[in-house]
């Protein structure tokens, strides 16, 4: 450990605002990148699944 207290860890020798804002922004960008493909995938299957279901219903109606 390179700091002797939580307070000095947060203060970063007076550079806390710079260090923590850089890391905060970094984490936000990384998290957004991590979530985006899961959201896209989910949306694709929701839309296509709905379409497939409706298609199946339409086919049933045509048959009857």
């Amino acid at each position: 450990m390179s700091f002797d207290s939580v307070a000095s860890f947060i203060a970063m020798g007076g550079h806390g605002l710079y260090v923590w804002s850089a890391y905060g922004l970094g984490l936000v960008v990384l998290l957004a990148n991590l979530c985006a493909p899961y959201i896209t995938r989910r949306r694709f299957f929701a839309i296509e699944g709905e379409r497939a279901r409706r298609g199946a219903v339409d086919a049933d109606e045509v048959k009857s």
Partner: protein
Amino acid sequence: MSSAMNVLKSWWHRLGSPRSFYGIAGRLAPWFLGVGVLGIVVGFAWGLAFAPQDYLQGNSFRIIYVHVPTAILAQSVYMMVGAAGLVLLVWRMKLADMFMVAVVPFGMSMTALALITGAIWGKPTWGTWWVWDARTTSMLVLLFLYFGLMALRQAIPREETAGRACALLAVVGTINIPIIKYSVDWWLTLHQPSTFKLTEAPSMPPEMYLPLLVSVLGFYALFGGLAFMRTANVILERERATQWVQATVRQHVQ
């Protein structure tokens, strides 16, 4: 010998086919993402709390563990986009175009983050947020190149034409990468020289550069996982009318 060539050829063919790539990507993505997240968490925590402070810069130097991996990825991803562009132009491989579409947004976000964290690091270190020197300016050009790739894609409605135009821009734009890389050696600048060089030992002690190495490897692994996932998403979107995608959709609905 010829059988080995055949194995290689069929492997290349399989990898180039969107359908089999979709399967491979789905199996590999979780591993890459897991290693990536672990590497970044360990690298960040190690760099923030355990690495010694710099004798000149104090604790602001810790920004290196976000800034350098981000800047490295910004450039590597662009090189990969350029390589994919070349593959698309020469062999017209569909998958290369899908890869380009998939990874450009990630590369752009890394470039923006590198510029912003660089500015935040510059303020306490150089006394200014921004200097128009070779390194920062060429990174800004990289951001515009990524932006251009996204805008060009949007502007051309025909998929094949858009792909070829983007491939050409991507290939031509790779000229910027050696300019970024050597800018700190060729021109006088405030920016410090590279930490990692292929031909020399790092100029830092191990307790400073090991967390950086872990963080860089974590970023690469995370990129690998995201590239697999995003390329798989582009494959689904573009091949939505095919039987195998429709079969996959039915499997998901049930």
